[in-house]
């Protein structure tokens, strides 16, 4: 039995669940936070989504059958929760997702938890101009350096499609940066 399988068993066992879950938090909270933050932009939203993600993981760990890696499953939940959060915000403001993201980026300069310089802000604006899926692929590849094989598992998309998506995203960002 692999280490991961043993860990999953401990997460499912009511006697060891809490202790194992605390270990899970230590292992993954920062990585998941930054993944979420790059999608939702603001710290407060990222905090909400991170907590929702782990609550969901805690409540549905029994349903996890180990068909994918634990890490991929966690990332998948975090990605879906992030998108749901953006959808909710957009609906509340009566705007679409793209407008909501642009609105969040426009507020970055006033955000206490953004210390980026001009080029970093421009890069966020460039990323926000991409379709949602391309944004996620770009962030995961460029900032998190996640392998395409793992990304395919997380996003349930073929490696070929992801590579094409990333390639197109890079071209669009380069165009955006050079023309702005």
């Amino acid at each position: 039995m692999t280490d991961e399988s043993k860990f999953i068993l401990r997460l499912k066992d009511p006697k060891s669940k809490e202790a194992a879950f605390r270990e899970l938090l230590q292992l993954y909270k920062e990585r998941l936070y930054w993944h979420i933050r790059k999608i939702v932009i603001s710290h407060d939203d990222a905090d909400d989504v991170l907590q929702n993600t782990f609550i969901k993981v805690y409540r549905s760990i029994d349903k996890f059958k180990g068909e994918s890696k634990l890490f991929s499953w966690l990332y998948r939940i975090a990605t879906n929760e992030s998108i749901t959060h953006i959808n909710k915000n957009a609906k509340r403001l009566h705007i679409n997702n793209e407008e909501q993201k642009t609105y969040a980026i426009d507020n970055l300069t006033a955000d206490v938890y953004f210390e980026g310089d001009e080029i970093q802000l421009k890069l966020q604006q460039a990323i926000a101009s991409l379709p949602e899926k391309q944004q996620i692929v770009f962030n995961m590849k460029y900032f998190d350096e996640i392998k395409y094989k793992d990304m395919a598992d997380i996003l349930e998309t073929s490696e070929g499609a992801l590579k094409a998506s990333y390639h197109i995203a890079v071209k669009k960002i380069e165009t955006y940066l050079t023309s702005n």
Partner: protein
Amino acid sequence: MKKGNLHNINDPGFKTPENYFESFEENFMKKLEGTESIPNLNDPGFTVPKDYFNLVDDEIFNKLNKDDTPVISLNSRKPVYYIAGIAASIVLILAIFINKPFGDEISVEMVEAYLEDRDLSSYELAELLLDSDLLEEDFVITETSFEEDNLESYLLENSEIELIIE
């Protein structure tokens, strides 16, 4: 050169441009500087509040230990859709049963009562009859023949001279 002895051929035969290795380091450093001209591009620029990652664990466990009953949102539209669907089904079922034609269930007594109620004259009833309804076998012909006197008085009382002339 000796032909065909493979173990004597040690040189793969490739060549490099002139001064390639001498200028390699210089060219490489230039390229490296090129990528460094956009500093911080690998860092998205986001920061977090101090001690955030130390405190978030407890926040998550506090939420998990709270009431585990599922929260039903008051603003959820799902119950409204379910109720609307059920109401529509009930209305549809009622509409089908109320509008169902009585057909075989109408009794002769009901028809007679209706006709009496309507107070139809024999002329109006006659208008409603089709030729196909008037079958000879339905009429009972009595042996009584009309007496001429009776016929004359009937015609005088019930007809108009214009119709007789026509």
